[in-house]
C-alpha cells in the first residue's frame, strides 16, 4: 500500500466517523415506530450515545469523579489501547471535532496567500501547545475531588452538545425563515420548488418542530471560537487546547509506531511542514514529537525525496535526527504541579460558594431519574443528549442556575416544555448515569410504587385568574396528568369590581400527588410568568430538599378515597 492509498483511507475514515457521529446525534430524537398494543414504553431503536462511550477522557474523569465506569464506558478502551501503540490516530482519523477543524483549516480562500514561509513557521511546534496538558491535568485533579468539568471542553460531548442544541435548531430556524421568505413572493413555481427542497431535507435534518434552548449563545461562543481560530492557526484547538488530545498524547508516550526520518536524502524543502496537521516537527533537523502527531501521514505523502517514513518500531535515532534529549511530553514540572493544585482547589472553592445546595436556585429542576446533586455534578458531561432527545423541549443547558460548576448541565424549564409522564427518554440516552433510566412504573408509580418526583407546583394567587381576577380558568387542572389529579378545585362565589357575582373554581395543589412535571405551568394562560410554577423542592432524588415532614408518597389512590 502506498502512502497515498493510506492517506485516502484516512480521509475515508474521517468522513465516515464524522458522518456516523452526526447521524447518531440526529437519531437522538423521539422518532420511533411502536405499536401501542404491544409495547407500553417508548425505547429508542439505536444506542444513540454510543459514540460518547468511546471517549477515554469521559471514562477517566467520570471514573475519578464518581468511582464507577458507567455502562458502556468500557468501550473507551477501544480507543485508548490502540493509542498506546499507534499514537494519536484518533485525532487524525476519528475525532469529529478534529475532522471539522481539519476541514476548516484547509479550505482554501484568502488564506491561499498564507502558504509558503508563513505557513511553515506556523506549523512548527510551539510552546502554546503545552496548554492542553495543563488543561487536562486541571480537569483530572478537579475530577478526583468530585467536580467533573472535563465535559466543557472534551471534544465529543462538545460536538454532541453544539450540534444538538446549537447547529440543528439554528439550521431549522434558518430553513423556515428562508422558506417563508421565498414563499412571500407569491410566485407559485418558486414556492413549490422551495417547498420541495425543504421537504426533501426536513424529515431527517430538522426536528419535528422548532426547539428553543436556553443558554445557546454561550455554547455558540465556544463552538464558534473553536471553528474560527482554525483560520489563523491550523487546528489551533487540537494543537493547543483539547484535553482529550492531551490525554491521548500522554498515552502515546511509548507508542511503537512512529515517523522515521532519513537525514541523508532530505533536501530541506519543508513541504512536510506545509501540510502538517499536528505541528509535531516532521522535518529533518528538528525533534519529531510523537505526542503532538495526529498520524495524518500528510508529511510522508508530501515528501518528494522519500525521506519520511511511518513505520513500526522506528529507530530512536531515526525519529529524532539531531534531537536535544529531553522529555517527550513537553510540560514543565512546576506548571504540572500548579495545574493539579488549581484543579484540586477548584472543588472546595466551588463548594464554599452558595450556589451548591445552600442557596441553590429554586428553579433548578433536574430531569426525572437524576441522581442527587453532588453525584450529578460528578457525572454529567454536558453532552446535551438529554436535551436533544426530550420530545417536549423541556430540558435545557443551564447558564448559572447550578452555579459556575454546572454550566450547561440539564435543567427543566416547564414554561418551555413540561415532562411527559409516559416518557423515559432522557434516562435512556445519558451515557454516564447522571440521569438513571427509569422504568415506566418507576416514573409514574402505582398503588405500591412511588412516582418519581422532580419538584412541586405552587400557585401564585396574585396572578391566577380565579384567585385574582374573578375569571374562570381551570386549565392547570385539565392538564394535570396524575390520577387523581394533584390540582384540585374548590368552587367559590366571588364578586368582581362591579359587584357582580361570579362562580369560579379555584385551584389548589395536593403535595402528596404532585410530581412536579410542570404540565400545569406549561399550560397556564398567564403566559409570561405562569400563575402556577414548579420549584425543585420535594424532588425524589434529594433527602434534604423537602417540604413536609410527613409527605406521602405520590401514588395513584383508588377513586373514592380522599387522598
Amino acid at each position, binding site marked *: 500500500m502506498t502512502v497515498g492509498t493510506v492517506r485516502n483511507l484516512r480521509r475515508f475514515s474521517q468522513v465516515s466517523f464524522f458522518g456516523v457521529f452526526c447521524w447518531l446525534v440526529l437519531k437522538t430524537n423521539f422518532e420511533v415506530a411502536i405499536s401501542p398494543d404491544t409495547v407500553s414504553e417508548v425505547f429508542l431503536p439505536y444506542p444513540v450515545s454510543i459514540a460518547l462511550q468511546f471517549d477515554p477522557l469521559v471514562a477517566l474523569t467520570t471514573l475519578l469523579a464518581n468511582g464507577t465506569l458507567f455502562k458502556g464506558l468500557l468501550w473507551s478502551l477501544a480507543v485508548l489501547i490502540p493509542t498506546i501503540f499507534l499514537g494519536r490516530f484518533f485525532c487524525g482519523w476519528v475525532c469529529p471535532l478534529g475532522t471539522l477543524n481539519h476541514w476548516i483549516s484547509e479550505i482554501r480562500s484568502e488564506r491561499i496567500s498564507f502558504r509558503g514561509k508563513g505557513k511553515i513557521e506556523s506549523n512548527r511546534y510551539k510552546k502554546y501547545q503545552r496548554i492542553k496538558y495543563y488543561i487536562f491535568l486541571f480537569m483530572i485533579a478537579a475530577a478526583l475531588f468530585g467536580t467533573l468539568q472535563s465535559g466543557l471542553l472534551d471534544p465529543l460531548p462538545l460536538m454532541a452538545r453544539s450540534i444538538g442544541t446549537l447547529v440543528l435548531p439554528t439550521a431549522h430556524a434558518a430553513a423556515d425563515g428562508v422558506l417563508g421568505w421565498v414563499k412571500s413572493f407569491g410566485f407559485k413555481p418558486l414556492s413549490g420548488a422551495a417547498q420541495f427542497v425543504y421537504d426533501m431535507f426536513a424529515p431527517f435534518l430538522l426536528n419535528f418542530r422548532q426547539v428553543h434552548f436556553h443558554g445557546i449563545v454561550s455554547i455558540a461562543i465556544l463552538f464558534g471560537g473553536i471553528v474560527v481560530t482554525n483560520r489563523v492557526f491550523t487546528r489551533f484547538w487540537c494543537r493547543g487546547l483539547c484535553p482529550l488530545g492531551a490525554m491521548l498524547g500522554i498515552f502515546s508516550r511509548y507508542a511503537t509506531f512512529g515517523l522515521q526520518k532519513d537525514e541523508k536524502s532530505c533536501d530541506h524543502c519543508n513541504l512536510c511542514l506545509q501540510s502538517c496537521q499536528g505541528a509535531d516537527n516532521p522535518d529533518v533537523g528538528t525533534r519529531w514529537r510523537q505526542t503532538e502527531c495526529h498520524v495524518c501521514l500528510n508529511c510522508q505523502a508530501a515528501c518528494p525525496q522519500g525521506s519520511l517514513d511511518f513505520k513500526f518500531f522506528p529507530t530512536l535515532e531515526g525519529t529524532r535526527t539531531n534531537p536535544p534529549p529531553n522529555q517527550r511530553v513537553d510540560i514543565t514540572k512546576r506548571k504540572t504541579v500548579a495545574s493539579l493544585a488549581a484543579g484540586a482547589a477548584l472543588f472546595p472553592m466551588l463548594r464554599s460558594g452558595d450556589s451548591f445546595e445552600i442557596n441553590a436556585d429554586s428553579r433548578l429542576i433536574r430531569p426525572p431519574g437524576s441522581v442527587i446533586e453532588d453525584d450529578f455534578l460528578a457525572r454529567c458531561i454536558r453532552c446535551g443528549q438529554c436535551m436533544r432527545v426530550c420530545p417536549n423541549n423541556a430540558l435545557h443547558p443551564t447558564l448559572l442556575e447550578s452555579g459556575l460548576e454546572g454550566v450547561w448541565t440539564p435543567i427543566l424549564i416547564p414554561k418551555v416544555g413540561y415532562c411527559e409522564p409516559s416518557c423515559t427518554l432522557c434516562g435512556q440516552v445519558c451515557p454516564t448515569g447522571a440521569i438513571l433510566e427509569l422504568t415506566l412504573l418507576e416514573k409514574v408509580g402505582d398503588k405500591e410504587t412511588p412516582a418519581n418526583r422532580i419538584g412541586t407546583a405552587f400557585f401564585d394567587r396574585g396572578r391566577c385568574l380565579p384567585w385574582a381576577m374573578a375569571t374562570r*380558568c381551570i*386549565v392547570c387542572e385539565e392538564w394535570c396528568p396524575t390520577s387523581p389529579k394533584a390540582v384540585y378545585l374548590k368552587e367559590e362565589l366571588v364578586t368582581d369590581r362591579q359587584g357582580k357575582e361570579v362562580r369560579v373554581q379555584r385551584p389548589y395543589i395536593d403535595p402528596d400527588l404532585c410530581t412536579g412535571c410542570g404540565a400545569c405551568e406549561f399550560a397556564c*394562560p398567564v403566559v409570561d410568568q405562569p400563575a402556577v410554577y414548579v420549584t425543585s423542592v420535594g424532588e425524589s432524588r434529594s433527602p434534604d430538599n423537602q417540604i413536609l415532614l410527613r409527605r406521602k408518597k405520590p401514588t395513584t389512590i383508588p377513586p373514592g378515597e380522599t387522598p
Partner: protein
Amino acid sequence: MKRREFIKRASQATGLAAVCVGGGWFFHDREWFKYEPPIVHKPDFQIAPDNAYPQISLSRNQDHVLALRDALDAVGGIARFVRAGERVTVKPNVGWDRTAAQAANTSPVLVGEMVRQCLDAGAAEVIVTDVTCNEARRCFLRSGIKEAAEKAGAKVILAVEDDYLVMDLKGRLLTSWPVLRHFVETDRLINMPIVKHHSLSMCTVGMKNLYGILGGRRNQLHQEIDQSIVDLAMFSRPTLTVVDATRVLMRGGPQGGSLDDVNIEHSVICATDQVAADARAVEFLGLAAADVAHIVQAEKAGLGLIDYRAAGYKENLG
C-alpha cells in the same frame, strides 16, 4: 485632481446619496409587506336534511366496528355523506398521550373503520388529524390512532406551524384565530369525539372537540368556555358527528389516566345534529343536557335540538 475624475467621484457620491434619500422617501410610512389573509371557504360541511332518516342514531354492540356500521346505516349510510372523489377530514380526539383503554382519546378501532367507510364510498383522500395538547407524535402514537388510520389507508397529519390559517371565526367571542388548514380546506368533515368528563364545561363531546381545530393560545378560551364552544360550533359545521361512547371517562377528564374512572358502554352515536349528539352523549356521564350550559346555549343559537328524540332518534341496544 483631473476634471474627469472629479466628475466621476462627485457623481458616485451623489448617486449613493440619491439612493439613500429615495429609499427613505419610498419606505417612509408605508407598509412594505402587506399581509393578505388567505381566502378559504366557510367550513360549513353539512348536507341537506332528509326526513327519511333520523338526525341521530345510537347503536350498542360488543363489536365496536359493527356498532359504528349499524349507527351509520341508521342515519343513511356513508353514501349519504361522502361522494366519490371527495376529500374527507376525520377529526378524532387525539388530545393526550394516553392509551386507548384510558379513554382520553377516540378509539382507534372506530377511527380505522370510519376511514375505511369513507374510502369505500370513493373518497379521493381521507385525512386524519387533530391539534393535540400533549406532544403530537406521542399522542398519535400511543393512542393507536396513527397506526389504525394509516392501516386503513388514511393520511395522518401532525400539524406544524405552517399548517395554520388565521381566520375570522365571526363569533361573539372568537374573532381572528389560527385554524388548522385541513379542517377548512376539505370537502367533508367528520367529527369523532369521545365522551369525557371536564371540570369546567362539565363534558367534552362533539362541540368541545372542535377546540382541536384551533392552534394558538387556546387555553385562554376557558375563561368563557361556553360561549367559545358555541362560537366554534357556529363556525365549523361537520358533515357528521360520530361519538365514541364505547368507553366513557367519568372522572379526571379530559386526560384521565386511571382505568377505574372508565365505564365501558360499547356504544356509538351518529348524528347530523351536533347538539342532539352531545345531548344524548352526556347521559352517559349521568348529566342532563339542560344542565350543561354550552349545550343549552348552542340550542338557543339555533345549532340543533337538545330534545334529541324530537330530532328523530333511532336506538339499537343490541
